[in-house]
């Protein structure tokens, strides 16, 4: 046996196990208890031992945007935040629409030896919404799903064909529901705050109109669709109904969206310039509740490092996005605590549930599962400062705030990749 994590509060959201005990690791996998002497022991007394986080949306900004972040900086940020698997959206420059790019990304990530990286391929060439990508070739290169990232397909016929094609081969499609015509000029939720601040609005039905179209196409094609970044109460309700109808759909929410609303724009705080925009407090509450009752399957960081210059701009001109890999765990804990959820249930939303969406064996602690683990103190305070973040993106609405949840160690395939 190679490693023993001793005396921690072991939480396995998949099985519901929550008890003090030991975790045995051998050959990169969780193993059955044994009398053998471990090569290394991690003392986890007073700490939580859980599956590593699985983040379905983390931008590493490679290839093409290394001035915002590099694979090296963001991979370090991931494991510092306890994230052991991450899916990266295809909105790189150029987009992930060719197997060579996907292959390079995977190899560079592997060489860095931190979290596992699962590329999400572009659904259409250059994400332009006009021509299908070679999905079979991309899947062979390692793409786990296909997506348009934040660039909606305007042409409904194209979307229909894309879903038909993906469904033929069983490829999952990850889509953000957004009507391009309604969203194109806006930069904030079309509500009281945008009206007061004089910002062009994105109406809430931007999301529900597109979602309605997509759900119809799921019915028509049988495509497996994962809806990314729900932002409105009405969309949560629509997904709830479609799950009742047994449609093959899942969905996620950005972790910031269960905490913040349009009110947080304050006086043009560009840290709150996100895509989709932060919506009303009622929407935020519905998202937080939907994540708790399972309508929303998982929470993601929607990690988007942005350099300071592009945030130091008038609100509408500033680039959207927030850094999130290192805040996913503390913000998920904060959400769970506010709702009075047991820790196992909170963690399920960032471990076993995203593992199910991704179709990977990680995200659980039973013997035979990959030894991807996080050891953390759920109560230890964590002051969010630029210096404290390993990510090259220091852009977060929570900059300057204190959150609880500090990662002590992160393991991927039984190897300690982060230790504090």
């Amino acid at each position, binding site marked *: 046996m190679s490693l023993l994590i001793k005396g921690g509060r072991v939480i396995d959201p998949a099985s519901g196990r929550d008890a003090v005990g030991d975790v045995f690791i051998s050959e990169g996998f969780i193993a059955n208890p044994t009398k053998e002497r471990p090569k290394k022991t991690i003392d986890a007394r007073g700490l939580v031992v859980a599956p590593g986080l699985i983040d379905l949306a983390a931008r590493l900004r490679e290839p093409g945007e290394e001035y915002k972040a590099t694979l090296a900086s963001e991979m370090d940020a991931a494991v510092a935040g306890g994230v052991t698997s991450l899916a990266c959206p295809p909105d790189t420059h150029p987009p992930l629409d060719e197997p060579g790019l996907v292959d390079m990304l995977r190899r560079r990530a592997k060489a860095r030896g931190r979290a596992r990286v699962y590329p999400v391929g572009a659904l259409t060439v250059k994400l332009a919404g006009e021509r299908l990508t070679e999905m079979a070739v991309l899947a062979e290169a390692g793409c786990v799903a296909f997506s348009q990232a934040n660039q909606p397909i305007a042409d409904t016929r194209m979307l229909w064909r894309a879903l038909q094609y993906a469904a033929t081969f069983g490829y999952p499609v990850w889509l953000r529901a957004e009507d391009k015509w309604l969203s194109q000029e806006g930069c904030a939720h*079309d*509500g*009281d705050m*945008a*009206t*007061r*601040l*004089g*910002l*062009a*609005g994105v*109406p809430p039905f931007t999301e529900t109109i597109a979602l309605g179209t997509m759900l119809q196409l799921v019915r028509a094609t049988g495509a497996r669709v994962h809806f990314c970044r729900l932002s409105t109460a009405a969309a949560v309700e629509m997904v709830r109904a479609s799950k009742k109808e047994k449609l093959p759909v899942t969905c996620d929410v950005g972790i910031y969206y269960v*905490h*913040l609303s349009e009110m*947080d724009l*304050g*006086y*043009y*705080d560009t840290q709150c310039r996100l895509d989709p925009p932060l919506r009303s407090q009622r929407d935020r509450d519905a998202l937080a509740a939907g994540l708790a009752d399972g309508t929303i399957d998982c929470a993601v960081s929607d990690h988007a490092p942005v350099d300071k*210059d592009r945030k*130091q*701009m*008038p*609100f*509408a*001109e500033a680039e959207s996005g927030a850094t999130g890999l290192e805040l996913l765990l503390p913000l998920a804990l*904060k959400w769970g605590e506010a709702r009075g959820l047991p820790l196992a249930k909170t963690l399920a939303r960032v471990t076993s549930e995203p593992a199910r969406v991704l179709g990977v064996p990680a995200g659980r602690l039973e013997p035979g599962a990959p030894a991807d683990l996080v050891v953390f103190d759920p109560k230890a305070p964590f*002051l969010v400062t630029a210096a404290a973040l390993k990510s090259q993106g220091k852009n977060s*609405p*929570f900059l*300057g*705030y*204190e*959150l609880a949840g500090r990662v002590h160690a992160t393991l991927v395939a039984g190897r300690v990749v982060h230790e504090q």
Partner: protein
Amino acid sequence: MPRSSPRGAPCNPQLNAKGELQHLLSIEGLPREILVQILDTAESFAGVTEREVKKVPLLRGKSVFNLFFEPSTRTRTTFEIAAKRLSADVINLNIAVSSQTKGESLLDTVANLSAMQADVFVVRHSSSGAPYLIARNVKPHEHVINAGDGRHAHPTQGLLDLYTIRYYKKDFSKLRVAIVGDVLHSRVARSLVHGLTTLGVPEVRAIAPQTLLPAGVQALGVHVFHDMREGLKDCDVVVMLRLQNERMNGALLPSAQEFFKNYGLTADKLALAKKDAIVMHPGPMNRGVEIDSAVADGAHSVILPQVTFGIAVRMAVMSIVAGNR
């Protein structure tokens, strides 16, 4: 001490620690006392502009930078006149055609000008909130005056509108004010609404088709009317807004003619307002689109006095912010 979430309300960026006006960014959030102080100060300056020597030495030795990222003739000129009458040195920068086209960022431009020893920045920008960004990044002795940002605010225009209304109507507490036209894109409308509600005007009306009203405009404290005749009934003040050319034909409106038919101010429609109603317009006017020439030049019109008052109001704002630390 770290702030604890949920994120608290940020403090008002235009007031200093003593609650005085450090920058003028928006009328929203300004206490009534400050609005009244500005209007009273402007009144005391009104005499200056009529004297033979139209100067007071209040800003002698100070530099006022007119930073116009968006073209403007009228507002820039009135700020320039106001600063000169306060004996300040005025530097006009038409940035729309200089550094921005060279790719310099907004904050770099401001930092460079700040290095040239500015005291007051008068800023116009096409993006809502740009003056807030500048105000957050200037030195403590520098002041920012918003001369119009995107569709957000045009506080000195709002103040001169308030000044005009007070001049002709004296008491705000009994007025019915109608604002007509493109409220959606209007920084003038937003600033005026906040000013009127702060000063206790009991009824502010917005008259426009749905396409020219922002979402939830009622939350600003206005009553919405789509029928202009109904909306003008018994009003004391009628404020017409400018309709930009590019908005006249398209998804918002079918044509300038149809807009004029429904929302253009004619003598006939004005007759529905009170007998002594005043008609205002921030300029520049589109005669025959939002307002008929007969009304623009008629007995109810106070459009030219508005321009004159604008100078006194801008003198007041500049002298007040420059006097606060």
